[in-house]
């Protein structure tokens, strides 16, 4: 059934793989491989860059030189220019040797894709190279106090002052707000429009007196989020992404991205599997004495495999142009719940030791529930699925 063309493509891909493998082997410092992922082991870029270690700096600079911080973005805007298959190979090869992402960035994960889809040529040329090279650290500001998952009711407003907006209001759950240089945010710019409209997707520089952010401490102790206050903050008119008053479309597109990512990355658990960990910690004999825990591990493995297959299928559907619009919702819902289950079982594997206040187990376990709330709570996902995927009616 195979034809000539795919064969040649496969050959090229094999070459790419072996070259990439050799390059990574030579260029990724051994000291930073196979380390648990976390805030302190990632480089986040920005105007005042902080490298976890010198080797992280070396690694970032080598990758940034090839634009492999953003391997599949178009090269005309400073991206790596790889095709999807090559991007996948690069990722597989990085996983193989446990190489970390050279640059963690909401610019890469979120804003970049939005700009590539909705941005003007000028916006792309201005912002994308800076994201690729880690020069600007971006924050995300959607939610507001009291609004929670109900984004349409947000009240932060931007008054039209001709060449700029004057922004006033307050955001909460701003991802990395107090560490970022700039923020992409939803602001009500058309006060007379209906509730779901009149919102613009606006880029705001945080290095101005009118913007202040303070961290929020989560139960895990992490401070990834902040509250951000806008007090006559200024954003130039050209910083609206997409149409004025249609920020909702951009945000929805990004939420889709975020949801798939949360579901896949969290549900599909990279690194060591829980079965491997269980065998390492308790051994086959220990597990035999604890059949209920052993079975919990097996069931988590099964569900994880299911999510991984879903993610592979999503990729194939993407190539075939057959993506279901609801896959992100499914992955978000089941992936984040699975993570809650898995991190809880990981605690059980370690027993009393898992309770250590500064332990990895406890940190991961306490990080899981927030993901069931963030990115549109799982209730919102179920509402979307039941109303839009299944067409179940609303009560009048």
């Amino acid at each position, binding site marked *: 059934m195979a034809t000539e063309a795919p064969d040649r493509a496969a050959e090229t891909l094999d070459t790419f793989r072996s070259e990439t493998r050799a390059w990574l082997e030579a260029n990724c410092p051994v000291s930073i491989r196979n380390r648990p992922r976390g805030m302190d082991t990632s480089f986040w870029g920005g105007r005042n860059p902080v490298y976890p270690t010198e080797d992280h700096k070396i690694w970032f600079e080598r990758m940034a030189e090839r634009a492999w911080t953003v391997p599949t973005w178009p090269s005309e805007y400073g991206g790596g220019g790889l095709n999807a298959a090559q991007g996948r190979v690069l990722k597989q090869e990085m996983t193989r040797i446990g190489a970390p992402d050279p640059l963690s960035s909401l610019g890469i994960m979120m804003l970049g894709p939005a700009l590539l889809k909705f941005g003007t040529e000028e916006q792309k040329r201005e912002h994308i190279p800076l994201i690729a090279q880690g020069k600007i650290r971006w924050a995300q500001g959607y939610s507001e106090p009291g609004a929670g998952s109900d984004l349409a009711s947000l009240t932060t407003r931007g008054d039209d002052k001709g060449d700029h907006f004057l922004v006033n209001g307050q955001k909460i759950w701003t991802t990395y707000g107090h560490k970022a240089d700039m923020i992409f945010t939803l602001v009500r710019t058309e006060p007379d429009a209906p509730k779901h409209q009149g919102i613009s997707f606006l880029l705001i520089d945080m290095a101005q007196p009118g913007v202040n952010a303070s961290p929020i401490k989560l139960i895990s102790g992490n401070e990834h989020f902040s509250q951000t206050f806008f007090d006559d903050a200024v954003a130039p008119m050209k910083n609206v992404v997409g149409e004025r008053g249609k920020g909702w479309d951009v945000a929805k597109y990004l939420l889709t991205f975020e949801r798939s990512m949360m579901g896949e990355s969290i549900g599909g658990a990279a690194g060591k*599997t829980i079965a491997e960990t269980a065998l390492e910690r308790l051994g086959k004999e220990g597990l035999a004495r604890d059949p209920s825990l052993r079975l919990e591990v*097996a*069931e988590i493995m099964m569900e994880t495999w299911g999510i991984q297959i879903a993610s592979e299928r999503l990729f194939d559907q993407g190539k075939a142009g057959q993506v279901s619009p609801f896959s992100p919702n499914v992955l978000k819902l089941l992936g984040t719940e699975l993570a809650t289950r898995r991190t809880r079982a990981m605690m059980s594997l370690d027993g009393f030791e898992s309770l250590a206040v500064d332990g990895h187990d406890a940190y991961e376990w306490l990080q899981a529930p927030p993901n069931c709330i963030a990115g549109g709570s799982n209730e919102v996902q179920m509402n979307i699925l039941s109303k839009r995927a299944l067409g*179940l*009616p609303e009560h009048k």
Partner: protein
Amino acid sequence: MALVLSEDETMLVDSAHGLLDREAPVTSFRALRNSGEELAWDRSLFGKLAENGLVAPNVAEADGGVGMGISAAGLVMEQAGHVLAAAPLLSAAISATLIARAVGEGQGADLLGSVVSGERVIAPALDEAARHDPARLETRAQKSGEGWTLTGAKTAVIDGYDADAYVVSAMADGAPALFLVEKAASGLSVERFAAVDSRNYTKLSLSGTPAKRLGEGDASDAITAGLDTGRALLSAEMLGMADEAFDRTVAYLKERKQFDRIIGTYQGLQHRAARLYSRLDIARGIVLKTLRAIDEGSADATWLASLAKATMTRLARDVMIEAMQMHGGIGVTDDHDVGLFVKRTQAAGELLGDDHFHTERLAAGKWGL
């Protein structure tokens, strides 16, 4: 192969769907059940399926088949699940795998050609325990002149009633082997088993029954391949049934009123429906991945067959419970179709290992837990 359907496969699905919709709506299965017909399947329907290349499409071209792989067989089974089509498709596909693997591809054209054409129904007889336990193989084969004779007992033989022949596993010279036993063979007795799903099952008892050996040497791999084929196809069938029962339930939620409201407007039911939708979406990927892995001869194929069977057994049964509950009283009456899906799902879940069996198979076998 990618986890999306090829053009050929899409055409196959359309063709199977069209034929089954026309020739085998659920009403025809109900009528067959009510008739008490012991064969429990429809000869005319089976003939039409064969004509259209839908019987055992996994048989290789070299063996007289269409060579579209287990993927195609699975897609057909999924469609058959939607209408509860009564035809010996499952036994045909399993027997085809057993025979082809035992004798070697291209060596079984005679036998396989007759399966594909619908000429002969050959039923696989592998199980010996009430709870699926492939490690248990107590049927014995003895060399007897040119051929062999078998002695032992088999249970859960799919489509075994009035089958033309059986592919029977037995121990020969200390290793598992496969044999063909003809319907008319001496010392063979066939007991019909009336099951809740109104399908065709039997128990066999063999006593010095003459048999023809299929291939040589240890047939363990062929048997596992046959079982995996069956597990993958039952998973596909359960996916079809679960999809159908779920779609009918969602439709009912949109029309049924209680307390002056369309019940589909209740968020309690909406969220439960959303969860089933999500689980079905994941399961669809698992089933397709399993079919692909078998066709590609991947080392994970046998484990994926267990993942699919465990996942679909649990999910399809959960879907049926919700289908009954959301239909309310009407859903648990014999007159309503939901019950037919409930019963077939239970049987399909049980055959060739249920969720418990396959969870343990993965835990111990794949993950070494």
